[in-house]
């Protein structure tokens, strides 16, 4: 009888260092949270998690550039995964900074579970960027998603928050099912779950490439990933979930989940299924066009700023898909650059919105911002910068991001897509400007008193604003980094 060979995988700590640090911090925070009395008015848990994220961020920057495949190809460590981990760390960092202020209005959030789940979600996100195996992608996706389902419903005394969590969970579970089924079909065709091996198999057996089963697998995977990035027509959950979730989490969802899902999407579609590029380009072209158009057009009529930014997040998924359609290295680096820029911008915007909380409630209607620009000049300025960045007006980073994405589309010959992209930018101008309009041009209607923001959130907003301007005025540093990380993607 043949003995089953059991190989203990060599523990390659280096390949999972940032994730390991994040996980350890998560567990520590959980333990500390349990042992400390509840509802304590301190933010020690937040700062503790902050330390962990900063260490993870530093470790990411230090190992940046190393290339290896660990755990039998389950985890790929390359420039690409480093960049995604970098984005995830920045996203988590800004979210925690904003949460530390936000939890003053909602003391329920000040507990070990909140930060623990946040950090575990970050672990999942970062593994989605470094997964080299379909199974690993699924595990990472679920780690991320389950944490976020809970986080979305964290204000458990508010019906809206519960509804948000429930909606996200139910639809998310469906989407995961589609994704898993897609993986199964791909496995059925190629006999492997390893991304690099799938590609090798397809090279060796070109007859499989156009089999219906593989096509079905690709289609189902598109549904699964499309749900996570809020791509049309799988975007319907976005506004309700974003509106109901705690504001500090909404920004996290909009940026972190999007970055992670795009990372996995890029790896699966370009590394494993690169042979099918010609087949998916057409449908992705259409989806990119519809996603940005529907997001922008519906956002025009929103009066709640969280809903407006939810639709704007759909539109931004559309812009990112433009880079995906372009398909070139330039497009992929454009996506990475844009994801980082969007992270700074969007978390900054949600950070500002979270500032306007009060005990047990929030000001999220656009009218609540009336006159705030002059009343709180720095906050107003920061918000204006974020809005101009989202609209793609220089010198904010959003302009450079769009410039890279659209020029990659132009270079690849998708001129009409680029034209629709810029038309959409103009449409989006209207609703982004509306925030500036109410902040600066309208007189104060209701007296919204903003409690003095804590130092943490100020630091967070300053980091976000500096990030936006740095990426807009001197984009070379991050652009070169994004370019190199795509070059260094393990194939």
């Amino acid at each position, binding site marked *: 009888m043949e003995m089953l060979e059991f190989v203990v995988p060599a523990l390659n700590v280096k390949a999972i260092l940032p994730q390991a640090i994040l996980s350890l911090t998560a567990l520590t925070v959980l333990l500390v949270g349990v042992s400390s009395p509840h509802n304590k008015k301190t933010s020690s848990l937040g700062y503790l998690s902050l330390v962990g994220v900063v260490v993870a961020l530093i470790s990411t920057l230090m190992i940046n550039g190393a290339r290896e495949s660990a755990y039998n190809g389950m985890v790929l460590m390359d420039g690409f995964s480093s960049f995604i981990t970098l984005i995830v760390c920045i996203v988590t960092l800004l979210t925690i900074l904003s949460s530390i202020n936000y939890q003053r209005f909602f003391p329920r959030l000040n507990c070990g579970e909140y930060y623990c789940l946040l950090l575990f979600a970050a672990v999942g996100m970062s593994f989605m960027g470094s997964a080299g195996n379909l199974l690993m992608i699924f595990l990472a996706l679920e780690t991320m998603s389950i944490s976020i389902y809970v986080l979305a419903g964290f204000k458990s005394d508010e019906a809206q928050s519960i509804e948000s969590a429930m909606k996200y969970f139910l639809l998310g579970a469906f989407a995961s099912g589609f994704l898993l089924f897609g993986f199964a079909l791909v496995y059925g065709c190629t006999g492997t779950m390893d991304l690099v091996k799938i590609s090798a198999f397809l090279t060796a057996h070109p007859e499989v490439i156009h089999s219906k089963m593989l096509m079905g697998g690709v289609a189902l995977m598109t549904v699964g990933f499309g749900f996570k990035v809020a791509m049309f027509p799988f975007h319907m959950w976005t506004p309700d979930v974003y509106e109901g979730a705690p504001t500090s989490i909404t920004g996290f969802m909009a940026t972190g989940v999007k970055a992670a899902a795009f990372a996995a999407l890029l790896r699966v579609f370009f590394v494993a299924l690169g042979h099918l590029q010609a087949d998916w380009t057409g449908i992705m072209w259409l989806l990119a066009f519809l996603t940005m158009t529907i997001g922008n057009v519906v956002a025009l009529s929103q009066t709640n700023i969280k809903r407006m930014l939810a639709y704007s997040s759909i539109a931004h998924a559309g812009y990112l898909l433009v880079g995906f359609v372009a398909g070139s290295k330039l497009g992929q680096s454009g996506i990475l650059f844009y994801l980082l820029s969007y992270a700074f911008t969007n978390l900054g915007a949600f950070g500002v919105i979270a500032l306007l909380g009060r005990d047990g409630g929030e000001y999220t209607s656009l009218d609540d911002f009336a006159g705030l620009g002059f009343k709180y000049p720095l906050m107003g300025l920061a918000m204006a910068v974020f809005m101009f960045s989202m609209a793609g007006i220089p010198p904010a980073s959003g*302009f450079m991001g769009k*410039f890279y994405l659209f020029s990659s589309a132009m270079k690849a010959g998708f001129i009409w897509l680029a034209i629709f992209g*810029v038309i959409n930018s*103009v449409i989006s*101008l209207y609703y982004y*400007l509306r925030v*500036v309009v109410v902040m600066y*041009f309208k007189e104060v209607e209701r007296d919204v008193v903003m409690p003095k923001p804590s130092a943490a959130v100020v630091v967070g907003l300053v980091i976000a604003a500096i990030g936006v301007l740095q990426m807009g005025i001197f984009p*070379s540093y991050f652009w070169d980094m994004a370019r190199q990380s795509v070059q260094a993607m393990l194939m």
Partner: protein
Amino acid sequence: MNQLNFPIISLVTFFPIFGVLILLMIDKESEDVLRGTAVAFSVIEFFLSLPLIFYFNDATHQMQFVELIPWIKSFGINYYLGIDGISLWLVILTTFLTPICVLCSWTYIQKYVKEYMICLLLLETAMLGALVSLDMILFYVFWELMLIPMYLLIGVWGGKERIYAAVKFFIYTAAGSVFMLLSIIFLYYYNYKVTGVYTFSILELYKLNIPVSVQFWLCLAFFVSFAIKVPMFPLHTWLPDAHVQAPTAGSVILAGVLLKMGTYGFLRFAMPLFPYATHQFMPVIATLAVIGIVYGALVAMVQPDMKKLVAYSSVSHLGYVMLGLFALNMQGVEGGIYQMLNHGISTGALFLIVGMIYERRHTRMIKDFGGIAKVMPVFATFFMIATLSSVAVPGTNGFVGEFMILVGAFRSFPIFAVVAASGAILGALYMLWMYQRVMFCPLDKPENEKLKDLNAREIITLLPLAVLVFVMGFFPGLFLRKMDATVSYFLKDFNTRYEAYAQQQQQPTIGDRIAAVMQIKDNKNITVE
């Protein structure tokens, strides 16, 4: 070429930002300090820009005071600045008008003084940046950057309908320019395909030989973007709204410099990049320009609101500029550039004057006035000078510009020139009629009897403009000499390249095409055999 070996253009461009930083540190309650600081910075800025005139070498068409530093290396985007005879005077006009704008807002702006001054100075940097950029992406960044402070100026400090006007202004202009951006990116990749070099440098891209069919669309994108800014009929509708709602200084900057960005854009980018397409568009543009001249004048004539009247007169005046530029001869182009400066000065002065009377009476309706000359003689004098300049009476700057444009236009398209000349008559009609109704009619409104004449600050604001009206009217050579070399090179280069395109375009006749098709068929037959 940089004759000073000193980054003077950067200094001039970013000096206002330095002023912004100082303003940020001043307490927002001490409003007079804020105003004084802003005046000081804008005046120093003007003096800093003067060496550009003194050291300008008028014998060469090349870019001067050039600065070139890589900005985004992997994309070949450079921080590339320079000035030639076309941009020199526009830069000076900008630095000249900004202190005037700051001065005229001294009492007009009462709320958020600090933010207002910051916006003005930021706007100055953006405008200067757009005028001196030789890299298209750098240009685009400044071009879009101009929108933000102007948008805030209209939206925060404007009149009743300010929000509508501000948003309309922003979206109109931005909508035009995004297509220009795509066009720029296309040019960039096309240039790479042909030459193997990644560059956005405008001087390099001039050399490109662009297939005519593509050229048409690229040129159209640039044209629409600039035509919105100019604004040319029928894309002008944002202008009256923006002008009427903007605070005085906003109108002055808008008329004085921002609109010139459009005409400057034609001259710097659209025309030399696409000579063949420009030639194709020539009749269309000339027609629209003439329509703009006559239509602007006719609409101006029936306006009950003084500011709106001046706004529509802008449409008419810029029609002249466009007609001159597209005459594509020495007189036309130089006249066009000269008229850009004139318009900045005369219309700027008119907006200031309307602003001053509005500050006193809180109305701009012509029917509310009458006989003002009796109570405000100094005001009447300045108003007369500005009116005469706008009407282009000989001896004022307006005459020189309009005359040169008409001479140039007559050489290229005589019929248009004749129609355009009628615009000059209409111009005299609406301006003088307004002057008469406001200043001369009987002084029958009691509110008007107690109006105070101009104070020292207001006289200081208007005096430089009034002096320039005559200096530019009597000594146009001082100004034209600096642009001669550049403009004549521009035309020579334009014509040689147009000829080259035209030769390539020796269109095959239908007979040739049929022959070509036959030949293909023949070849096929041969291969089949």
